[in-house]
């Protein structure tokens, strides 16, 4: 027999269009059966209790990255977090840190995408394309695996202590994306093109406290990418130009 327990959800409310009202927590009491996710409860609250509540969602299966938020102090995707895992009947929900709030749990992602665009997040080739595929060994393919997994949910961006004090820091997701291409055996970007991130707004800004790794719902380790890029830049400095 499955029994429902009563939970209190404290959700941060704020509206940028009514910025004279300070952010505040609103409480919703709702009965939840085990197995339900935070997103399922949020949808129920919006449908049945309060149609004014704003949050993002799309895939509800931890692949699209829409619903990243702070759940009882920890950043995660609401869709893959079960309500019953907290050992407490109070759940506190807040929007991702390091972003401006638009409304409630919805933040303005513009700076995140600006950083993404900055690293030239696409394969750069100088050689002409072959008729068939560009050969790539399984080994080479595996090297980029973990960075390919990134769903751009911005959990790492929200968790980053450097971004908290310096909004001009490029951030973990963009650097992981850059390393995804820099490591790709098919990519031919010149080592000089990495100069853009060879500064304290780029790879040297990272504090190496690994909060991005902790926050990532997809087991990506942005810090690995930062270490990799730093090594590439040092190698470039020591051994001169050439490819990476």
């Amino acid at each position, binding site marked *: 027999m499955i029994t429902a327990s009563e939970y209190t959800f404290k959700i941060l409310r704020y509206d940028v269009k009514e910025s004279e009202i300070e952010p505040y927590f609103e409480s919703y009491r709702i009965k939840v059966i085990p197995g339900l996710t935070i997103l399922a409860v949020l949808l129920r609250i919006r449908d049945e209790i309060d149609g004014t509540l704003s949050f993002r969602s799309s895939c509800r299966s931890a692949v699209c990255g829409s619903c990243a938020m702070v759940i009882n102090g920890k950043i995660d995707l609401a869709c893959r977090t079960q309500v019953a895992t907290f050992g407490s009947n109070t759940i506190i929900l807040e929007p991702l840190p390091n972003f401006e709030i638009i409304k409630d749990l919805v933040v303005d992602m513009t700076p995140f995408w600006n950083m993404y665009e900055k690293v030239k997040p696409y394969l750069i080739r100088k050689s002409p394309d072959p008729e068939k595929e560009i050969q*790539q060994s399984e080994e080479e393919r595996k090297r980029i695996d973990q960075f*390919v997994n990134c769903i751009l949910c911005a959990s790492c961006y929200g968790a980053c202590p450097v971004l908290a004090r310096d909004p001009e820091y490029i951030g973990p997701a963009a650097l992981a994306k850059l390393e995804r291409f820099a490591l790709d055996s098919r990519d031919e970007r010149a080592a000089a093109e990495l100069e853009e991130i060879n500064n304290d707004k780029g790879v040297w800004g990272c504090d190496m406290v690994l909060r991005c790794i902790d926050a990532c719902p997809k087991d990506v380790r942005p810090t690995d990418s930062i270490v990799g890029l730093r090594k590439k830049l040092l190698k470039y400095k020591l051994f001169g130009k050439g490819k990476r």
Partner: protein
Amino acid sequence: MLYHDVLIIGGGLAGPRAAVGLCDKYNVGLLSKVYPIRSHSIAAQGGINAALANNPNGKDDTWEKHAFDTIKGSDYLSDQHAVEIMCKEAIKIVYEMEHWGCPFSRFPDGSIAQRPFGGAGYPRTCYSADLTGHVLLNTLNERATAKGVKFYPEWFVIALVTDGGQCHGVIAFDLKNGEIVPIRAKATLFATGGYGRVYFYSTNALINTGSGIGIAYKAGVPLKDMEFVQFHPTTLIGTNILMTEACRGEGGYLTNKDGERFMKRYVPSAMELAPRDIVSRSIQTEIDEGRGLEHPLGKYINLDIRHLGAQKILERLPSIRNICIDFIGIDPILEPIPIMPCQHYSMGGIDTNEKCETDIKGFYGAGECACVSVHGANRLGGNSLLETIAFGKLASFVIDEYLQNGEIKLDERLLMSKKEEMEKRIHKLIHEGNEKPYKILADLSKTMSAYVGIFRKKEELEQAVKNIAEVKERYKNVHVTSTKLHMNHELINAIELEYMLEVAHTIALGAYLREESRGAHFRRDFNTRNDADWLKHTIAKIGKDGEPVISSKKVVITNYQPMERKY
């Protein structure tokens, strides 16, 4: 009022592919109701079909064989010239995506890896572990970023503006600012995806409401073959998250409560790799006849991949494993996965020809929202990702040709009056009525899952049409709580609901009228295919009284004469 030469609606695979093909030459705008990378294409797991002949067991594969498998799989309802275009283009498309950086899984010789999928005579499904949609969508987003495509993220189209057979643009809703904005365009392409959420049990993202299909329909564009709804055999019980066909492609078994691999009773030659319609019906039959298992979340069948071993599962199906752990607390390396079949894909949609053109000049459709038709009565796994990119690309050529040929006159007054009409409608949603949108949706989607499902019959379909008429009546009284227009998701839900009701109506009515069984459409009361009367497309068009008017259209046959579909 905004202006673009070309407006593309939808951020999945078809939309960005078309945008990439047009943005060098034209002023292109791409609207997506979510950030484009959150589109449902991201969730596709298994792969994309192309006769590359890379697999050692498929060295003599050709695009013609791919076309035959697709046509046979479609139960001969697909338009064969369109299938041929797609299968021929498939090879170029996979190479093109690879050249743009798509990280496909590889064979030891460095070529793109391919695996077997249901209904295909050759192992021709190219993949990237079980994240194929994710890598393809990222690659196209990267390409669009490189080319500087103008995106409008979180802009939701609420109406299409047409007049006398010409499309003038759309009325869009900017979610962030809460503004209603008319956008004028010489060419408009809908790539708005499927309608899974009109069903209660669906593998689809929450955003897959089919509103694009409904918007086109309300603007007078005919819909085609709406009764053909694909039910995926293997979806996780409870959440109905998809367990990719690759689970079976890699060698997974389906077993009932007696531990029996029951597919041997239905399709001994293909077993678990029979086409989806057949496997779905087999699973449902096992459950209906009492050979399923019981779980607090429902009756189920086991999808067992344990014998593949931890290494293969971690390599080829890593996200399947994570989904099972996160969403049902089961590690498929150690335990079988509890699955049930449910709604997965819409074969039908906006009626387009093989060039993505509709009845309305300047209005095009591509991807799941469109019915070209390449999937006919049943889509083979690995063909949907292919369709999106193939016809997204083709649409870019066709639109280019259209824009080069002659003057296109756009009427701004039409857009302004449509804008006013939409403003009034939204004002009414906010200020009048007492029906909650979520309740109406629940009643609609439960009706669809119960009565327009895997097995259908006359009385149930009649009941469905009747229920839909009732919820449509109730919708007139729908009410939204929040008076604010920005980031008002309840309002978006309410607007979409109107279109969902229309889409559901055409599905149920089409299923009611089609008195035969073909592909995914299975009638218990007419359980064989009837080519003499029904080898034709169903066309649904909105009538003057707002009710659907159903007619038919010939199926295009080129090289493959219909024969009995045996596996």
